[in-house]
């Protein structure tokens, strides 16, 4: 097992470096980062001096070598935009995004399981149709629109919740719901079809024939078997959210997370911050992937992770 973990970590490191290399090259080759970072009124001398100061006048391979060398000490350089260490910015914003994702996916899972179950117990019945339609609706509504509609209804008209920001727990509700809506729909659909599949299996008929109440069948046996599938999708949703799907929600709700910071860094051409964000997120995804695989192995030892 330990060898397996080490092998996965090594592969992960290669993946992270590969991703970082791509970002490294793209940010330097597409457009002129110096033009983006300096105001329009900067003179040619200022641009040259600036390029020299951040090392952009060196050939690409040398820049990358220096970057990798600095990585060993987790030094991502100084954010040109905020004039403080890029790693400081990343680790300041990361917890906000993680909180948002946890709340959003938590909300999604909390409702997806019961909704999927209820829908599956009477497929094509009236309740099922409602749930499936609502699910489709949830999948088709763009987050941007959902966010602004929720703000208009709950914050502006009803004044139950704040419009934006991240200072209290009530600030978390609308962004979490907005983020969690599409995952909720997907997870509900998956739960529903997985439960329907399970309920058609022979062991269920046997259990019912033996007199086990429906609720016990559903609650204990079916759910456990469905859980792996649901958790796999949830893990995928987690990775999806982490790799940038929080950007829209964070922008609409002015939620100071990593997604918003990434967009701002890109717009301002802050190479070092963009690199730092990409690296940290890639590393996080690799680790989460590994953790999920190990978790599934623990839940169901029959799973072969190799």
């Amino acid at each position, binding site marked *: 097992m330990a060898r397996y973990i080490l092998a996965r970590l090594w592969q992960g490191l290669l993946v992270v470096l590969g991703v970082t290399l791509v970002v490294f090259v793209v940010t330097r080759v*597409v*457009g*002129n*980062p110096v*033009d*983006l970072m*300096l*105001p*329009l*009124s*900067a*003179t*040619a001398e*200022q641009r040259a*001096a*600036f390029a020299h*100061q951040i090392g952009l006048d060196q050939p690409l391979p040398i820049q990358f070598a220096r970057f990798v060398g600095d990585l060993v000490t987790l030094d991502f350089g100084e954010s040109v*935009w*905020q*004039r*403080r260490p890029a790693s400081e910015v990343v680790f*300041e*914003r990361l917890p*906000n995004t993680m909180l948002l994702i946890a709340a959003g996916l938590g909300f999604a899972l909390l409702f997806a399981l019961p909704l999927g179950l209820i829908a599956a117990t009477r497929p094509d019945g009236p309740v099922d149709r409602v749930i499936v339609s609502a699910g489709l609706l949830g999948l088709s509504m763009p987050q941007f629109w959902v966010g*602004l509609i929720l*703000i*208009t209804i709950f*914050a*502006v008209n009803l*004044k139950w919740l*704040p*419009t*934006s*920001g*991240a*200072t209290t727990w009530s600030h978390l509700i609308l962004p979490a719901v907005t983020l969690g809506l599409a995952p909720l729909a997907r997870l509900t659909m998956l739960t529903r079809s997985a439960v329907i599949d399970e309920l058609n299996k022979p062991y269920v008929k046997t259990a019912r024939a033996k007199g086990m109440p429906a609720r016990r069948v559903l609650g204990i046996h079916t759910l456990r078997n469905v859980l792996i599938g649901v958790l796999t999708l949830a893990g995928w949703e987690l990775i999806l959210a982490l790799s940038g799907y929080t950007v829209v929600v964070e*922008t*609409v*709700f*002015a939620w*100071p997370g990593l997604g*918003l910071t990434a967009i*701002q860094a890109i*717009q301002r*051409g802050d190479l070092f911050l963009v690199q730092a964000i990409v690296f940290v997120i890639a590393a996080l995804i690799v680790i989460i992937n590994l953790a999920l695989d190990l978790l599934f192995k623990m839940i169901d030892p029959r799973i072969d992770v190799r």
Partner: protein
Amino acid sequence: MLFTRLCLAGALAIGTTAVAMPAQAQEITIAIGSEPSTLDPQLRDDGGERQVNDNIYETLMARTATGELVPGLAEAAPTQIDETTWEFELRDGITFHNGEPFNADAVVASVARIIDPENNSEQMGYLNTISGAEKVDDDTVRITTTGPDPILPSRMYWMKMIPAEYGTSGNIGEEPVGTGPYKFVSWDRGNGIVLEANADYWDGAPQIDKVTYRFVGESGTRLSGLMAGEFDVITNLLPEFVAAVPNAAAVDGLETSVLILGTDNEGPMSDPKVREALNLAIDRDAMVEGLFQGYATVAGGHHINPRAFGFNPDLEPYAYDPDKARELIKEAGAEGKTIRLVGESGRWLKSREQIETVAQYWTEIGLNVEIEVQEFSQYLKSLMGDGPRPDAIFVANSNELMDADRESSFIYHMDGAAASNSDAEMAKMIDDARVTTDVAEREALYHAIFQKGRDLSYTTPLFNLQDIYGMAERMDWQPRTDQKLLIKEMSVSE
């Protein structure tokens, strides 16, 4: 008897309540579009940082709300000792928020720090003529320039004064200390900045006691915050939402949009008749109503801000004469020819809409227009790179120093980063105007420059945009043209 007693008791109760009620501390919340990158007032050219720091720091010279240059921390306008030296007398008895005195040492330290090449200040674009400062005595300081610099006083309206000791050794990027009417309290990164009134402010304590800044980039969310009562002031309100907000104020802003025409390009653009036709083809008044709901003014023949020095008030806006335009195009044999119009979307208000509308007008006079809305870094390359000049490129110009030098150097001077002409004569005129110290002569030069620019249609000037702010009903404030968000000028009517 009982009735009288009850009345007396009632009167007493009301009386004591009225006396016992404490004065309400006035607190407001302002939502701006972007969080300051740093609170260091000298390093970056960042609008968000200025929106906060303009209340904490001050400058030697200041401007009235209508743009007139007046003394600020200086006692009076400076006197010129010689071609490259200006002497400022400083006001007495002013202290920084941390107790350090405001004196010549502070001015010298402020100047030295901002021009130090080690610090790589982005503001050097506004200040690159300043070579140093020296103390004459505690209240007198001399500032030297690299050459004759008629707008030095205006530059000192831009440069913020930091304390001599704390400014160079303290945590100035995160805990600002200035002389201004508001003191820094806290910065909760990502969430907000809090300032409180400086009771010892030399020009009288301001009315509003506490200010919280919030940073909300999405304009729809900012608007919602205002309408939900969370914000008292919001910036950059879109014209179409003015009717929806409880209170709003608009002011002629600093930005003017303009299309720079590629006068050197082979093909139709090199013909001044074609360029004139391009200008006559546009119904600018219709665009002001249609795109900006009236919250803009048509630029008069050049893109210089009406409040800037050098603005030529005699230049008329181009007329809307599509028939004449069509004629000119036919005469020049340019019918059916293709023009490439380059722009961007998102950085400036309605840039894409302006470009698309103009392209439509140009198509109607017989040209074939190809629109290219580029991603911002690509657009910057098109605007300022060494490649071929686009036939027409959109830009919105801001006149922070309120002087025509930068804008003419940038767009009209043949060596300017965004210019598309090779007019050596005009370049010389601009170079001369930059260093002419005689005010009347300098003004005349600029007027001549812009007259020439209009005669030859080097550009298609569009609109001087208005800045619109949304406010809560209780706020009373007239915003400034120079975009400074000065809380001391705001008041709350409860």
